């Protein structure tokens, strides 16, 4: 894998990006000034449509770098890949030329039954070997590195033999893959499963982090739920500062997927985080 380009090396006018979401189509079609430097798309929402979503993407990609973030790779599945899906995705990447591609460290269902959820697996040697082999297959097929995102999970397995962060660290060493570090997921998991997020960050090979996700969570019956439906809480900002003390140049996506505010409000939120970054001194 060492001959693959490191996609984190692209020059961005602004390292803060924004998710391309349908409620903002009308606004974006009016070609407003945009603060964010790049857009992230959910690959599956765009790779087969030829309609309005694709036209907006085609227009935006002329002026902005695009990051393709997938939700159906199911890298932790024990079934064969959906090769038609991979082939369509590859063709799509060839057309869109994303500066980053990513998916999640999870499985999403079983054959013929995609649950459209990001489901956890046990952190143990068996799964480490299994995922390593699958990531190798994917990266070889696409001829490029993928970034894999850490999950928010609402349980852990009794047969997990290592921590999530140790698993991720090992996985990146074996496969040379990149990471999409979701700080909200780290925070939610650290609260729900009671671990110290510093231990997590200390184990992360930051040179492999191609992108960060920041988002707001929700509280539900005393536990935190990863909803991407709120502005960032102060705890998330603190976590981001800890990342900044390690590396300041990682592209950041401010995720907002439920109760999506207007594009202007979203960009105001992004400006706030951008200011925090520019004022940060380690």
């Amino acid at each position, binding site marked *: 894998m060492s001959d693959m380009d490191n996609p984190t090396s692209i020059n961005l006018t602004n390292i803060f990006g924004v998710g391309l979401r349908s409620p903002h189509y009308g606004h974006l079609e009016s070609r407003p000034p945009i603060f964010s430097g790049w857009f992230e798309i959910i690959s*599956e929402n765009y790779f087969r449509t030829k309609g309005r979503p694709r036209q907006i993407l085609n227009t935006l990609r002329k002026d902005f770098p695009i990051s393709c973030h997938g939700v159906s790779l199911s890298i932790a599945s024990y079934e064969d890949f959906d090769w038609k899906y991979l082939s369509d995705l590859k063709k799509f990447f060839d057309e869109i030329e994303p500066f980053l591609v990513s998916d999640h460290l999870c499985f999403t269902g079983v054959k013929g039954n995609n649950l*459209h959820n990001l489901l956890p697996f046990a952190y143990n040697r068996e799964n480490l070997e299994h995922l390593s082999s699958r990531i190798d297959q994917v990266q070889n097929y696409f001829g490029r590195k993928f970034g894999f995102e850490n999950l928010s999970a609402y349980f852990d397995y009794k047969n997990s033999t290592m921590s999530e962060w140790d698993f991720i660290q090992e996985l990146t060493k074996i496969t040379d893959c990149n990471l999409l570090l979701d700080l909200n997921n780290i925070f939610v998991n650290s609260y729900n499963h009671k671990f110290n997020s510093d231990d997590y960050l200390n184990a992360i090979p930051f040179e492999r982090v191609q992108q960060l996700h920041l988002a707001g969570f929700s509280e539900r019956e005393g536990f935190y739920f990863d909803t991407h439906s709120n502005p960032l809480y102060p705890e998330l900002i603190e976590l981001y500062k800890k990342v900044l003390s390690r590396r300041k140049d990682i592209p950041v996506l401010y995720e907002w997927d439920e109760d999506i505010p207007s594009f202007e409000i979203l960009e105001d939120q992004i400006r706030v985080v951008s200011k925090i970054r520019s004022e940060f001194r380690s």
Partner: protein
Amino acid sequence: MKQKEFNLKFAETIRSNQIDEELVALIKDSPKIKAHRALEVYQEDYQARMTEALRNTYRAINALIGDEDFFYLAKDYIENYPSPFSDLDEYGNCFSEFLTAHQLNEDYVFLSELAHFEWNFREVFHQAHEIGLEATLLAQLLQEDSCKIQLVHSVRVLHYSFLIDKLYALKDETDHNDEDFDFNQNQYLLIYKDGVMVKIHSLSKAQWKIVNTLEAPHSLLSVLQNADSITPSEVQELFQILGANRLLIKKN
């Protein structure tokens, strides 16, 4: 239990109303969520996600029957139709067929047909806008007996036994009174793309028959020979729509 077997059982549990105690025994209680509850969270999240996908596509049905009945329908559909799709947005392709046999279709007789319309609307929305012959060129070609014409791909020709376009329009109204509205009429529709947007045009039965024929290549002469009881003004109006919106292509 191996991860492969766990995955299968976990997927089954998420789609069911039951919690598999065998799985509960294999996962840890966390300080904030007990194992049993954690599995319920995944079940609830699945229901919510799939219901939302159906709501996104079937907005008119949701608006007309209300949230309570829509959730009831969605629950039944989700229970019977797993998603084979990589894109959640594609979920719901069998909703119309499912509704024909559903008891709620007796209370709301238009449900299945409205679902059929909403799915077709969605399909046209996601198609590329194929631009057909410009109106004056079309007019010239129609003079040639041998010239065959056909509809572009980004068009649907539909027939319903209810006033579907009026029912569909009610999705955007906050206050509608069904009693004032007689929807029990046949309707013939043409759905097509206009740039990135989708437009709906109501046709007469005779116009619909002609457009339906044009889903395959035909000469104007053969189309008109097979059309019964269509007036010259209906023909003129129809080809005005097809020409102005560039919905026909030449086929040899």
